[in-house]
């Protein structure tokens, strides 16, 4: 092997080693959550849910009229149920992923589906409400649902995709309590 070839082979090996290092997932990724579903409906180990609608609103009012707030709100309508067990069957962590930013269903809003007991075999229809900056109006968002307080390890997270581009925008949306059994 001539001197030049030796150098080229050495450089190629170093590049390969760098590539292998870059492509190796981090050790912690063996504990990552499992993202389940990519359409309007998804079913996982602890939850199943489907999107039924979504609206932007400037003002949100609670069902009893006691609470109202202005802002840029996204109201996501969905139905959810428990696939196997009603123990701990509730949407606890609901996030909206859009353009690299993550929002959490607002803790300010009453009457939402968050932390409601879900039933096996019977859908509960309700809303999740997200408070967003004014410029979040387009693109495709993902609604991610799980039953844990923080993103679980080695467990399912439902992913529902929600195109924001053609959503209706209302000036005021009055919320209503979640309803069990809409089928």
């Amino acid at each position, binding site marked *: 092997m001539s001197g030049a070839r030796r150098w080229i082979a050495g450089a190629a090996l170093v590049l390969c080693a760098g590539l292998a290092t870059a492509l190796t997932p*981090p050790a*912690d990724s063996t504990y990552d959550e499992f993202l389940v579903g990519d359409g309007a409906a998804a079913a996982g180990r602890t939850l199943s849910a489907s999107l039924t609608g979504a609206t932007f609103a400037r003002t949100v009012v609670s069902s009893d009229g006691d609470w109202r*707030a202005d802002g840029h709100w996204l109201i996501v309508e969905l139905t959810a149920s428990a696939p196997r067990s009603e123990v701990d069957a509730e949407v606890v962590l609901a996030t909206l992923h859009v353009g*690299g930013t*993550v929002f*959490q269903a*607002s803790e300010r809003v009453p009457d939402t589906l968050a932390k409601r007991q879900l039933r096996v075999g019977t859908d509960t229809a309700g809303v999740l409400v997200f408070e*967003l*900056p004014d410029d979040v109006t387009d693109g495709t968002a993902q609604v991610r649902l799980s039953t844990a307080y923080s993103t679980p390890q080695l467990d399912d997270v439902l992913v529902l995709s929600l195109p924001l581009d053609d959503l209706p925008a209302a000036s005021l949306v009055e919320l209503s309590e979640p309803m069990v059994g809409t089928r």
Partner: protein
Amino acid sequence: MRAGARRLVRALRDPSSIPLWIAAVAALAVAVPFVAFGGLDPATRAPLPRGTGDAVRTSLYEVTVLHAELTDKIEEQYLSADDGEDLLVVTAVIENLSDVPVGIVQTVDRVRSRLAGSSTPLIDLVGVEATSGPSAWRDESVAAVVLQPRVPAEVRIAWPVPEGSFPDGSVAIDVYDAVAQGGQVILSSSAITWQRTEPAARVTVRVDP
């Protein structure tokens, strides 16, 4: 000696030393502005003095202190001061400039923002030792406050402090800059901690009794 100096002058005037002159001028062109614009100043900087209603922007969040008052009871939050203590309630607008939701006192999902109520809080009372951990809430709060990315939120933070902590009628609050650090040793690499760095500003606010 004089012969050496003469030889040096002759060498410097020689056409072959022109590259040396160009290099020297280039080095000066970099060095002079560097020094003139403060390149050799000490790296630490004093926190900027700020007052009521001034926004303090750090790399991860922005805070505007609106109001501070002393009280002994906040009924809707079931908070009350012990004997010999007061509650210092600070009203502020906080905007989360990161791209994930964070809490003020609590951890939200996998992010520990530690804005208040840790051993190294980002919003810290100066010269006053809170007797126990602070609470944070919004007007309608029933759950822990979550600051959504880029959505300013008006929040209240209450610290229990010894009575008579503010003899001059004002409180100073240090606002620290922070960096988001991933991968704490015990937690997984997906956990993020806001680690405080330099003080960004010292906000001085009148305390209403």
